[in-house]
């Protein structure tokens, strides 16, 4: 990845590209990898999924394309100025800030548009959003476990133990997890948990203490910071990562983005994805084996499962078997359904059995 000082130069270079295209009498354009499911490829070297060779072009040839590029020029100016002044802003602030630009055509019509544009700029310049000093509105999730870190904050350095120095809520992951240094740990493995309810259950039952486990709260589809810290925990502390989510197609995608990278940010997969992460459950197999209370699959669930069968990230024997089984039984279960066997079932029975079977403990 680039250093922060490079970020501004990369942006100016992009503007210079546009300038040169104009000067040469060419139509300004910006070429990006096509960001669709069909254009992600497995990178054998790193074990993650990244964009393939197909590209699409944002060209000033059309009114739509010209507007996009105009907005890009304005955003480049804004980001360059922000880096100059060493300030930061959120994606949402960028959206509102565009209202103050002198040009109506350059203003964003929705936040999705500004988010997409920032991602485009990341891809073209090879600089991450964090290095542009752009952060999401909602910050990353939380950590709980035997880990001592040092965080570089605007108000100075802080040393925090993620079990002893934090409340029941745990340690809040900052927007740019690269500002953290790992100092010491007593972690055997990390467990990334989808829902807040299950995280609280594990903490209440003392699972992290009992198994020397770092509980990472994913908060649904994990933010980049969460995925980045997960990868750092794995790479730097050399511990296995297990993902514990609901037993439905949407949760498999959560696992997918942790382990393989997401389609939207496939350009950052090498930086964000942890291909060694394993899926604990709830597996469709578990629904049968533990006879968990289940809901029938809705039409959109079935469509999502079928689309996952086509998704190159899920084309492994394990996933094909599980997804086909789920389509077969036509059921899905939440993590909390384990409570049907008692509140301690998950920490006393289910997780130890599953983690043992996976060779994590």
């Amino acid at each position, binding site marked *: 990845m680039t250093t922060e000082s490079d970020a501004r130069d990369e942006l100016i270079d992009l503007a210079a590209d546009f300038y040169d295209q104009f000067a040469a009498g*060419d139509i300004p354009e910006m070429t990006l990898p096509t960001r669709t499911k069909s254009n992600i490829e497995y990178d054998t070297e790193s074990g993650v999924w990244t964009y393939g060779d197909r590209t699409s072009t944002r060209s*000033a040839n059309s009114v739509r394309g010209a507007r996009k590029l105009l907005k890009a020029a304005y955003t480049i100016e804004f980001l*360059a100025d922000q880096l100059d002044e060493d300030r930061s802003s959120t994606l949402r602030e960028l959206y509102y800030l565009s209202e103050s630009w002198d*040009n109506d055509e350059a203003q964003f019509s929705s936040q999705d548009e500004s988010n997409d544009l920032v991602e485009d700029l990341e891809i073209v310049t090879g600089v991450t959003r964090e290095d542009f000093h752009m952060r999401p509105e909602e910050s990353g999730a939380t950590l709980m476990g035997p880990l001592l870190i040092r965080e570089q904050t605007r108000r100075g350095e802080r040393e925090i133990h993620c079990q002893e120095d934090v409340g029941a809520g745990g340690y809040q992951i900052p927007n740019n997890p690269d500002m953290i240094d790992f100092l010491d740990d007593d972690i055997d493995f990390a467990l990334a948990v989808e829902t807040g309810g299950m995280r609280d259950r594990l903490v209440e039952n003392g699972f992290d203490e009992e198994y020397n486990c770092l509980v990472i709260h994913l908060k649904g589809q994990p933010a980049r910071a969460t995925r980045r810290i997960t990868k750092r925990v794995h790479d730097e502390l050399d511990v296995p990562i297990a993902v514990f989510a609901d037993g439905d197609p949407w949760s498999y995608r959560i696992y997918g983005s942790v382990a393989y990278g997401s389609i939207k940010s496939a350009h950052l997969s090498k930086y964000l994805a942890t291909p060694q992460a394993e899926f604990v459950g709830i597996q469709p197999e578990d629904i049968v084996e533990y006879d968990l209370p289940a809901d029938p699959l809705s039409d959109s669930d079935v469509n999502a499962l079928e689309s996952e069968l086509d998704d190159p990230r899920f084309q492994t024997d394990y996933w094909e078997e599980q997804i086909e089984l789920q389509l077969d039984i036509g059921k899905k279960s939440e993590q909390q359904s384990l409570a049907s066997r008692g509140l301690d079932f998950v920490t006393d029975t289910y997780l130890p059995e599953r983690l043992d079977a996976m060779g994590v403990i």
Partner: protein
Amino acid sequence: MTSFQSTIGDEEGIAEELAEGQREISIAEFFEKNKHMLGFDSGARGLVTAVKEAVDNALDATEEAGYLPDIYIEIEEVGDYYRLVIEDNGPGITKEQLPKVFGKLLYGSRFHAREQSRGQQGIGISAAVLYSQLTSGQPAKITSRPKGQSRAQYFELIIDTDTNEPEIQADEETTWDRPHGTRIELEMEANMRARQQLHDYVKHTAVVNPHARLELREPGLDEPLKFERATDELPAETKEIRPHPHGVELGALIKMLEATESYSVSGFLQEEFTRVGKKTADSVIDNFRDVYYGRELAWSPPRAHDDRDVAGAVADAVANKGAEATTAFAEGVAETVANNDRISRSELAAIVDNVAETVEGDTGKTFGGTVRENAVDAAWGAITGVGGDEAADSDESDDDSESAEESPLVSDAYALVDDATSTRKDDAAVRAMAEALTRRFENLDGDAFRITLDDLERLVADAASFVAEQRDATFGETARENVVEAFWSRARTVPDDPPKVKAIAGSRDAAADLLDAMRTTDILAPPTDCLAPITAELVEAGLRKEYDADFYAAASRDAEVHGGDPFIVEAGIAYGGEIPAEGSVELLRFANRVPLVYQRGACATTDVIKNIGWRNYGLDQPGGSGLPNGPAVISIHVASTNVPFTSESKDALANVPAIEDEIELAVREAARELKSFLNKRRSMQQRREKQDVLGRILPEMADKVSEVTGRSRPDIDGALARIMNNVSVEREVNGETVTLVVENHSDVNEELEITDIVSTEPTDLSDGTVVDMDGEWFVQWKPEVPSGDERELTYAIDGDADFEVSVGGVETEKLTVNA
């Protein structure tokens, strides 16, 4: 009727009483009471109708005389009345004719002519005169000056409503500044509530008569409305045609039969009808014979194994001619008969005549009429088993029928019936049918088996119901039709001469048969030189003249025929420009160049327009049917020798499918052009919009990137031209060399016309031409630049110069000039 009943009722006096009240009604009186039938139902409409009638007459008169119409219409308020003046530059009307033309209803030159003209009944203008005198009490004041006369004739006249004759109140010579023409002045009770219709009528008349000059003055106008000519070409002169055989009705036919000087039917047909020559006349007459006389059923002659001996029968019938001649004659007849597949009695008679002549020539014996007749009777008896000897030997024949020796006709009939009906028919039923038919044929009058198609159908139906009763075997409609067809197609048209014209004229039935024959004969469509279409070119010119639009299209169809009358449909469309965009389109309807003003909703043209899916052609049509909306004028012209109107006031076209089809095709033809115009305009508009937006965005983007990079603003014209698929013309001045670079970024080849105006004298031109114009030099090139290619146009100058370039040959939307 009444009087007849009163005699029965034995009530004397009532009939007389009633008779006192019964008298002839003059046509003028009738009109007085039925003004609405001719379009004079209200003061407002009366005025429009009077103008219309007078203008129609004026146009017809001028065109016929070969003058370009110049018509002046003036409406003035005179106390409680309106005075209407119409002047034309027509040929004028002779002193003798004039009172009748204006002062007698149903007097005119058009009614009997089969030719496209505006007026037809000779009722219009005299009806206007009558309306004027009824409402104002004033006579019509008419001035007319035939060409070449030094003075004009002035009349004041009224119509005597009792006699339908003009009553002349003043008759004097006067002076008139027009060299020739007619002027009519009418005063009438009226109002101007129908001003819009009046204006429409005059304007629309100008649209379909682009060769006419019209001027309208009326109290509501500050300035007279003037409609100038768009062409000096008179409509093609129309030829009067004779009626087409498919277009006459029985009453008309009888009248023609009575009036003709022809003696024979053939002559009559060829003389009085169009498209009938000798050959067509013969086929009509053959069909007429079939209807009028019926055909003669033909039968199979005896075959070799048969015991019916034609030769023997003939020989027996001939006496005193000597053995040699008799044998030659008998065998000749028998041989010829046997050569025929089927034979009718008339054919047999012809054979006998032929053979008799031959044998007479060979032997010198004479075979007289009686001998021949006997021979025919005998041979016919031998062939068919009926005729002469049956009468002679009635006992024997009775025995025959009883001894079940069946008539030879039965087996013949059996073969035909069996062939004509389905194979599933029971053989016994078929035989029964053949027998029943044969019995009925034998009962026909005479022994020639002469029968009309109608009678044959009846006879077959009768036989079928007989068989159905006796045998419980049904012969359905199809089977009966097949049987009829089998016999009828094998029957022979009789050689009898058709009755003479006089005889047919005297017999309603015969005339009906002739009409039937005329209608069933295939005859060429009538010629179309009786029609004067406006032509697509002039339909468009007419619209162009009166509507300031962005687009015009017109279509003129080929002539078609309905009911013996040829017709041509033309359509035109004007779109955009000054035509109001709100509400539905304006529909102009014309019949024989006369605008139809009233009853739009009842008109076939309106129905056709409503049923076209206009969205397909780029016009807005709420609900997908009905009159479309938008800034468009659709004009439809139907020209015919007999335009079918829904009523006498000639306001709306009747729904005749053949005409409706043609209207639709004509309108669609013009609408297709409209569609491609609208498509092109839309894509040009999109291009303009794109150009507007990009022309705003890209400079801003260029500013921004130069700001961010800290460089000076880049030149973006090249990029713009490329984006717009444009043609760009750019000037480069390099010391003494001036270069105009023409780049074609569009996907088609472009031919440009470039003119560069230079303030000093250019030299060393790379082709092109230079013209000195008072110290300015016009350099001209006409480069052709292929798609994606570029051309450099250069010249040299000495020192500084001013330039001004203009570029033609490319749509301005596609052009970027930076020079």
